[in-house]
């Protein structure tokens, strides 16, 4: 479903990703972790072509994302549901409108928009707030609206950037259960988070970004959450030789 081959990315000459390679199969549920600034958001942006890599190839569902002409990008993005780190909700639109406007732009009639928006809002337990505006919602509620919007078009691939960043631990666990449910229905799920405790509890495959490369493996249960990625990163099997630009 997702294939990265030797992907490198620089911002203004500063290297963020270096020779990154990994694969995620269809139907998998995978975490992407690493310290702040490691490049998690960058990896996701490369996936939906908000950024292009300096080198390497990226395939999503067999389609080459790097060489894709700009006219095909909307089509690519419509096959994914994206939960952005900063939610990107429209402040002047209600919860219902925020969730359903993509459908509106795809020409789905109002009745069906209502039905589908209600369905996904029910899933994230916000169906009683359809007429609220984003600023009337808590951070966690906004995050759930963002998730509802990502799910409303029934994506093949769900990509979420820190979807639990504003949730307390109980709500975060609930969110993960939700992701598992979605995953069970056949949607591939990729979640970027630095909440190591959550990754540990969920017990899914985990990719750790470290110094531009990626390390595979489950986060060790014994490690304190903050230190987990460090131990992992400096462990005995670095994929990329240590090197700074």
């Amino acid at each position: 479903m997702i294939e990265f081959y030797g992907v490198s990315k620089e911002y203004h000459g500063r290297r963020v990703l270096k020779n990154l390679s990994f694969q995620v199969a269809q139907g998998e549920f995978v975490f992407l972790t690493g310290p702040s600034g490691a490049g998690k958001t960058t990896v996701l942006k490369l996936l939906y072509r908000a950024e292009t890599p300096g080198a390497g190839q990226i395939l999503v569902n067999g389609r080459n994302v790097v060489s894709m002409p700009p006219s095909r990008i909307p089509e690519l993005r419509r096959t994914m549901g994206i939960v952005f780190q900063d939610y990107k909700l429209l402040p002047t639109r209600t919860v219902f409108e925020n969730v359903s406007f993509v459908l509106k732009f795809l020409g789905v009639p109002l009745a069906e928009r209502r039905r589908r928006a209600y369905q996904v809002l029910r899933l994230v337990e916000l169906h009683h707030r359809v007429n609220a505006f984003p600023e009337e919602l808590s951070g966690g509620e906004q995050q759930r609206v963002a998730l509802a919007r990502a799910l409303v078009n029934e994506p093949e691939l769900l990509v979420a950037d820190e979807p639990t960043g504003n949730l307390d631990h109980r709500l975060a666990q609930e969110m993960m259960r939700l992701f598992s449910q979605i995953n069970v229905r056949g949607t591939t799920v990729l979640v970027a988070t630095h909440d190591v405790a959550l990754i540990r509890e969920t017990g899914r495959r985990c990719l750790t970004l470290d110094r531009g490369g990626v390390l595979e493996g489950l986060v060790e249960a014994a490690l304190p959450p903050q230190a987990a990625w460090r131990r992992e990163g400096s462990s005995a099997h670095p994929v990329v030789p240590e090197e700074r630009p």
Partner: protein
Amino acid sequence: MRSGAAVASLLDEALAGLWRARRMTAVSVLQIGFSLFLVGLFLLAAENLGGVVDALREETAVTVFLRPGADEAAQADLERRALDSKLVAAVRRVSPEEARRRFARSFASLAGATGTLSSNPFPSSVELDLLPGAASSAALRPFLANLAAFPAVEEVQFDVDWVRRLRGVVRLVAATGAATGFCLALGAAFTIANVVRLTILLHRDEIDILRLVGAPEILIRGPFLLGGVLQGLLGGLLALGLLGLAFRGVLMFITATENVLLGVFVVRFLSPATCGLLVLGGVLAGLVGGTIASRRHHV
């Protein structure tokens, strides 16, 4: 069905966008409306002048207007001289009553106005039908000067001459209208472009998010383009409304003041085709402005 819903959502988004920038929208609609209104005035004048020319063209004859009180002997003398000149095929007397009837027939909408006049403003006259070729004959001018020197003659009118001049005026009015209209429409398109750009700025975040979630490009930019077109359409309709009001106003003024002279020129409204053209002009201005503002690197 899906494309129907897509069009509905486009229109919905476009209207919402205009509403969000409603002050600017109102200003631009007013500007377009006023520009097209001015163009319409020119067209109205040109069409009516043209109508007058057409009404008169059939009667390309020499008209000799007589002084009030010209006697029968003088008229007979005049007619004999005319027939002797070898330029005139026939003579015809036109009484003041006949002249008024003709006027009423040509300008039906003003029949009421002339009917209410207390005295008949039309003088009696003699019409001379020219022989074929006489109109371009060198002998015609001295002959007309000769007629004009008659004591009973008030004025000699040779229609071909002033019809030709009137035609020139019509062309000038139409050309001025077209040139002014073009400049004004350009200005209107520029205003629309600015309004559309403003609505795009107001929707900046929305556009970015729409792109990120994969909304089709035409559906992202379409509402803005459509917004421009709608502004042009509204401006065109506003111009038509204003023209209609102005036309009625002038008509009422003519009837109230019995101003027959002005009445000759403002007797009918723009033809449906010209009305359509005017609105189309607004739509085109909107299309141009909208297209300029919603080109990809602006949105």
